[in-house]
């Protein structure tokens, strides 16, 4: 798998990465960095801190990569809150999870997530998925809910 060059518009998308797993955050950031795109990235280690930031600043990011299985406030709870507070605003919510359960995918779709990414076992695959996700955020095209399907 090779990465073809993508061009992005000049604005800097604001990305929130919410994952309690430090390794996964590291890998995710590494993958995103390799895309060499200018982004504003904020990391959150749990759902609660994400909620606090959203409440306080009143700012809404362009993209939220949201892990599901987190302490204190789970991804699903965050998703509920996000969609209730922000409405179906421009913020894209991408679920990133180790679970590939069809039930879970369906639930998050119904709760208003935009796409779903199963955390892959291959770094290159991760890079492709991140790239697709960013592209979706900027210029929505029709694609499957479960982004992994594009990579296989």
């Amino acid at each position, binding site marked *: 798998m090779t990465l073809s060059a993508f061009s992005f518009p000049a604005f800097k998308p604001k990305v929130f990465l919410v994952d309690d797993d430090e390794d996964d955050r590291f890998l995710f950031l590494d993958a995103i960095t390799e895309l060499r795109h200018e982004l504003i990235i904020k990391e959150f280690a749990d759902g609660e801190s994400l909620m606090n930031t959203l409440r306080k600043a009143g700012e809404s990011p362009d993209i939220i990569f949201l892990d599901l299985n987190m302490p204190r406030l789970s991804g699903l709870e965050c998703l509920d809150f996000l969609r209730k507070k922000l409405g179906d605003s421009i913020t894209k919510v991408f679920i990133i999870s180790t679970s590939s359960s069809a039930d879970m995918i369906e639930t998050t779709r119904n709760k208003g997530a935009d796409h779903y990414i199963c*955390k892959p076992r291959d770094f290159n695959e991760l890079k492709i998925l991140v790239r697709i996700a960013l592209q979706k955020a900027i210029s929505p095209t029709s694609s499957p809910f479960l982004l992994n399907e594009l990579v296989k």
Partner: protein
Amino acid sequence: MIDLTNKTVTTISNCDQEPIHVPGTIQAHGYLLAINPQDGTVTHCSRNLTRFLQLPLQEILGRNILHLFPQHRDVLEERLGEKGQSSGLTLRHDDVSYHMMTHRSAGLIILELEPAVEDHPETITVPELLSLIKTPGSLVDLCDTVAKEVRRILGYDRVMIYRFDTEDHSGEVIAECLADGMEPYLGLRYPAGDIPLQARALYVRNTIRSINDTGSEPVALFTQPGDGTGTVPEQLDLSYAYLRSVSPIHIQYLRNMGVGASFSISLVKDGQLWGLIACHHRTAHHPTLGQRNTAQMIGILLSSQIELLERMEQSAESLATEKQLNALLHFFEDENRFGLPALVEKPELLRMAEAWGVAIVVMDKIYSKGLTPPSDATLRLVEFLRQSSFSTKGFSTKNLAAHYPAAKAIEEVASGIIYHPLDFASKDCIVWFRPGLVQTVTWGGQPDSRQPNNSKGTLTPRSSFSAWQQTVRDVSEPWSDAQVQITARLAFALRKQLRTLHIQQESDQQRALNERLMAVNEELENINWISSHDLREPLRKIQVLASRALSKDSHNLSEVLLDSINRMQVSARRMQQLLDDISAYSNISAKQNVHAEVDLNSLVQEIFIDKADVFREQQAELKVEELPEIVGIAFQLKQLFLNLITNSLKFSRPDEPNLISIQVTSPTEEAIEAFGITAQNYFSIVLRDRGVGFDPAYSRTIFKLFQRLNNEPDGKNGTGVGLAICKKVMHNHEGLIWAESTLGVGSAFYLIFPNSRLL
């Protein structure tokens, strides 16, 4: 004419068989006639009637009784019509008064005549009788009074009251009243043989008998030859005849004792001979009819008093033992504390039987308390009892050695036992023990002196009556009826308790087993959960990080490092595969599965489509004949066929395209034998391939979890779970899986389903 004198020679062995009720003779102090009530003819008569009637026997036998006693026609006619026994009629003949007594025997009327004697003035009045039974005090006191009264009324030199032992039937003199100069027999014991069995039976039926003169010769009875119709018995049953002569052996016995006349009154309790009032006179003695009737009444009164006294004694004792029993029954209800070791420690258990020791034997284990035989002796005893006729009803004795000679060795602890079985199938039981007492028995003569003492070997009674003392060690204090009964009730309750306990134990074991099973299942599910979540995550990170190293820095890495990371990747992938398979395997065991109709044709078709690439790549072929629709768990059946097809494809021969065929067939002989199934209840689907095959020695091993044969093609190492899943799927469908193979030729997998799975 036939002389009926019963000449059966009594030999040493047949004393008990001597037909004493048909002696064929009578005593000399009276006359006897038997009359056919149909026509009034005389069928039998005693020889002395020739003197009485002044007629030869030929003219008496066969004559109508009314012709013989024309002057008593009215009385006789009346008597012949009566059914029962009667007496007290006086008949005058040649200026002499006679008592006439009649009774029926075997369809004939027996008429007895005895000279009427002026009644003895010493008869008893009703108030005297009543005061007699009101005598306060013990049974022995009562017997003493009765003995005195009987002697006063009947006038014998000696009146003694015997009591028979309920176990060994020996008799003991418990009361006595004597004329001056008579040797006392009080306290003496007489062996059971002194009164033979048939005499006892007769004594129960006819409660008084009199031998008026042991010195007189018996008088023969005569009858005519039978008419061949058999309506008239030849021999006469004299069970109820007052004049019946007694056994010559008994006469000899009495003569040996120096007795000229004897009289006895039976004491009967519960239909058993309890004892006798026995009267002896040094010379001949003729009690009058009035005296005899009084004696009979006294006998009945004493019998009823004995019964009453013993019952009162027994009920008082029952009340006491009942308390002990109730305490134990309460203990039975105490589930937390009940147990055989605890039960045997309960003091009530010994107290209720006034026993010295008790042993409960359950499943060859002895729980004992108090004075009991050593355990090996106990077990041998219990085994003896189980095989004896007592094993169902229970048994009690005061002299165990009389029944079980080995008990002689344990007489000091176990001469008396009460035994109650607790289980009819085993030797489980409860036994109470009493020690043998050292006691001195004074016999009225040596008990074992009954020897044939004449040259003909005929039986003669003993002639020695001098007291003879014996020391006995193997007889315990006797058990009372109350004790035997109360212990039987305890045994009954214990039997029920043990049965309940047994059922309880079984269900406890079952419950414990179920709990363990549930725990194991939970643990398995846990392992499944761990393998599908906790193990997967770190593994995924290893894989991502390894791939990251390869993708980002591969040009900076040395060959060695690159190779290592590649190998890490392969290992990680393999581990991932294992985890996937394990969770697939445990998913197969999950309970909540829906059985539905499954069309195997379309199921196999789907698999073929999924695997089409591999088939194409290998140029392999799949041939499927018409398969049945069955009831099963669709996803499991799909997994089954998928695994089998994948397995066959994996073991294709490199040089030749594989051909996989699936068809319905019957189970092979080998499979039928191996599983022990009934062929007609099963059908099978066989999947054959033309792969590399395997050594038939492994035809069972291959279905075990994580078992792999080392002939797997390079780079296609499996996890050894696939075929284990197949076996599990078959198991979930009450079916079996069987494999046959020839190395280098191919394999066949038989899926054996019960016919009930067919739609």
